[in-house]
């Protein structure tokens, strides 16, 4: 697992939960909410899909770690590497 793969995993999840969005030019350093039509319920969906598809739990206090693709990659890499299960 590496950070680029994690960014793609998050993008794939966003493609499912926000199917009207164009994801070809998402800037990794920019907050996802600032460049896509995502609301707080959508972030709950991202958390849910990480749990369902990859067995990764994101505690409520750490939701803000998912604000951009870069922050997702930094935050989720150790979780993926540790093979964390829900």
């Amino acid at each position: 697992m590496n950070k680029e793969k994690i960014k793609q995993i998050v993008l794939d999840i966003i493609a499912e939960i926000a199917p009207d969005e164009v994801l070809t030019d998402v800037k990794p350093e920019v907050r996802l909410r600032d460049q896509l039509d995502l609301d707080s319920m959508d972030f709950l969906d991202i958390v849910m899909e990480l749990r369902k598809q990859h067995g990764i739990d994101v505690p409520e206090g750490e939701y803000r770690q998912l604000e951009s693709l870069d922050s997702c990659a930094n935050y989720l890499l150790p979780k993926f590497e540790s093979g964390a299960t829900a």
Partner: protein
Amino acid sequence: MHLDRIVISGIGLTSPLGNDLGTFRQNLLAGNSGVSRFPVRNMGDLPAGVCDFEQTKHQKRKEIRIGTRAGSIAIYCAHEALHNSGLELDNIDRSRVGVYLGITEHGNVETETEVCQLFDHYDEEVKYWSHHHNPRTVANNPAGEITINLGLTGPHYTVGAACAAGNAGIIQGVQMLRLGECDYALAGGVSESIRAYGIFAGFKSQGALADHEDPTKASRPFDTDRNGIVVSEGGCIYVLERLQDAQARGARIYAEILGYRINSDGTDYVLPNPERQEECIRQALDNAGITPSQVDLVSSHATSTPQGDEQECKAIRNVFGDSGNTLVNNTKSFIGHSMGAAGAIELAGNIPSFEDGKVHATLNLDNLDPACELPGLVSGNAVAKDGGVNVILNNSFGMLGINSVLILKKFEG
């Protein structure tokens, strides 16, 4: 007491026989069935009425993902009804539009799906339960989804009235217009019931689920071989307005609401009560200020159950037996039972009678049950009615003994 005259100025629908009134009517007159086989969890492929409207016509894909099937049906019908009425939301006060939808039930589909997913894939761990569950299952969901999609800010809610709900939604719209709570009512009924196996299983356990090797022949009200209900989905929403408002904007007026009545059997959870049904019909006639012989067409509720059809026929016979003018037909024989939408959809399929003077038939009536004999029962092919059709009476009854009757009159300015 002065009561404003209320008219229908727009119709939007989706049914197993078409996604607009013209197509639906054409299929009814041609005698085509809309029933097919549909995969039902744990029960195999069962006869059902399925709609094929284009969901993305009026919704973003994200809205479809978050919302419910009933919400999608409602949104489709609301858009089509508004378009049909000629109203432009940008030119009217959105806070003066009320949304009143009849539902038989709501939330079964979403809850069943969530529970099954939890059991099938997540070992009953509730942390996998969707946060969308509550907004999907609140009882106002289909009406509320319309307001979100269209940016409407007037009142919205659903009217729970079992299978009398389609009429009940329309009646609620009429009442709110007369009370001045809104200037335009989007009123009717919706149902997504085919997507919950519990609905089918419940009818089966009750001995009231249709079974036939040919799905198009499964729904057969009044026939000796009828054996139960074909569950269907669908929706129909009307634009209702006060007559003077509709005339002022030059709207096309489909019909006037002449009268209505809702009453209760007060007797049983499931079994209908023909005495109360008869009473409901007579009180609706009184409310409309007409006699039985002035009714040209009775759109019957009959669902193809052995007992229910017989009971309704008693009520209709008692009221219209000596009418000499009244024809009777049945739409569920074509599309099955669209539950909360049934009253609204079945009425819509008959409204074009005001213009073309024709009455669609009752399908699959090969051997009339003697207990269901009715003067004026139309079977086989559609007929042209002598003198045309000027008044339609629409029956819609439901569990817990709720009866609804709605009477429409051809509008002649």
